[in-house]
């Protein structure tokens, strides 16, 4: 079996690290010693069957859940030892999130939804909204700034959610089944935009998905099985010419 991942270069702290992470929900173990290293700027796909623990692992890495045992590190510093207030600040200041069903605040307009992380971080309203509007053209959402979530299609809502996840220029974007509720064409557009935005800003991305086509956007994939992480790659190309399309 291959190790937990290629990890960062020499002298460079991993962006994220899980060491022997264990977590149970009541009597049911979800993670049984998960090890994982994510390099800065890397895009990692976490795959695995339903119930394998992949979303739980993402929640531990993101400071949403605290492991029963093991360590979680962000930029080389333990985050599992932080209290709830400190973890909340970490999530707000360093992380962005995109979930399967957008989870926009229905009472707010699309631009207010996008501006939300900035407002929570203390940016003045006018400035936050102006920054938020900059994302609408970038994600092909022109003209939708004042709509509420009920007036957006699934693909539009998910792109608004992506803008909200990226607007505060997070160090890490966590995406949990970001295309799970979309048809394949719309899902691919969201992934194209997510990948482009992350690469442009040098954002580390952790995406949980059961779809191989989504995982194929990532630099590397791992599989979670029975609460443990199996790393698969990278592997050498088995085709003679990478990128070549056979006609």
């Amino acid at each position, binding site marked *: 079996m291959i190790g937990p991942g290629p990890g960062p270069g020499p002298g460079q702290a991993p962006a994220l690290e899980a060491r022997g992470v264990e977590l149970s929900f009541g009597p049911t173990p979800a993670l049984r010693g998960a090890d994982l290293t994510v390099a800065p700027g890397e895009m990692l796909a976490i795959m695995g069957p339903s119930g394998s623990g992949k979303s739980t692992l993402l929640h531990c890495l993101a400071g949403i859940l605290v492991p029963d045992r093991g360590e979680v590190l962000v930029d080389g510093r333990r985050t599992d030892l932080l209290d709830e207030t400190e973890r909340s600040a970490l999530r707000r200041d360093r992380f962005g999130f995109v979930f399967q069903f957008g989870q926009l605040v229905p009472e707010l307009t699309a631009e207010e939804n996008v501006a939300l992380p900035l407002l929570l971080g203390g940016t003045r309203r006018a400035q936050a909204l102006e920054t938020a509007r900059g994302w609408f053209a970038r994600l092909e959402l022109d003209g939708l700034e004042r709509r509420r979530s009920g007036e957006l299609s699934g693909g539009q809502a998910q792109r608004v959610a992506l803008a909200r996840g990226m607007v505060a220029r997070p160090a890490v974007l966590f995406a949990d089944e970001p295309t799970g509720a979309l048809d394949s064409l719309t899902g691919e557009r969201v992934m194209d935009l997510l990948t482009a935005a992350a690469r442009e800003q040098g954002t580390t991305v952790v995406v949980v998905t059961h779809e*191989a*086509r989504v995982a*194929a*956007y990532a630099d590397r994939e791992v599989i979670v099985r029975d609460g443990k992480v199996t790393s*698969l*790659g*990278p*592997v050498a*190309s088995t085709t003679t010419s990478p*990128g070549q399309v056979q006609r």
Partner: protein
Amino acid sequence: MNVPLTLLGLLDREPSHGYDLKRDYDTFFGHDKPLPFGQVYATLGRLARDGKVVVGEMETGAGPERKQYVITEQGATEVEAWLTEPVAPEPHLQTVLFSKVVLSLLLGRDAEAYLDVQRAAHLQRMRELTEVRRTSGLVDALLADHGLFRLEADLRWIDLTVARLDALAAEVRS
């Protein structure tokens, strides 16, 4: 389907006669297309010529003479390498993937490890095709999409097979 390596794999389980090899091959791999006797013996002849099998004791009895074939170390090494290497991810792979999994289970080898390696090879190819989609014109993107959907179908099959390996092993060994 790679007939020589599949026959070699069956011989890695135990020495066998041509007739029994054909029967086992047809049981596991030849549902739609049984292997003709002529092809069985021609293949065994080539494997013997190349040093991958040797002909054992000749059995004589009431019926025709029966040759027993035994795998050599060279042949066993070749089977081992074949069963652990990923197949180049191209369309129409299902028979090769299938035969590798069934043979691995028959021989008591780690089929899950093979499927993991194959999954990694498939995802690597999907990454390359995703990059083609992103950077090429629509025509190449359409071709890349076709490849992506086929590889995705293989991956779904790999996922399902991994989930069923224990039951599958029990069935092929029964």
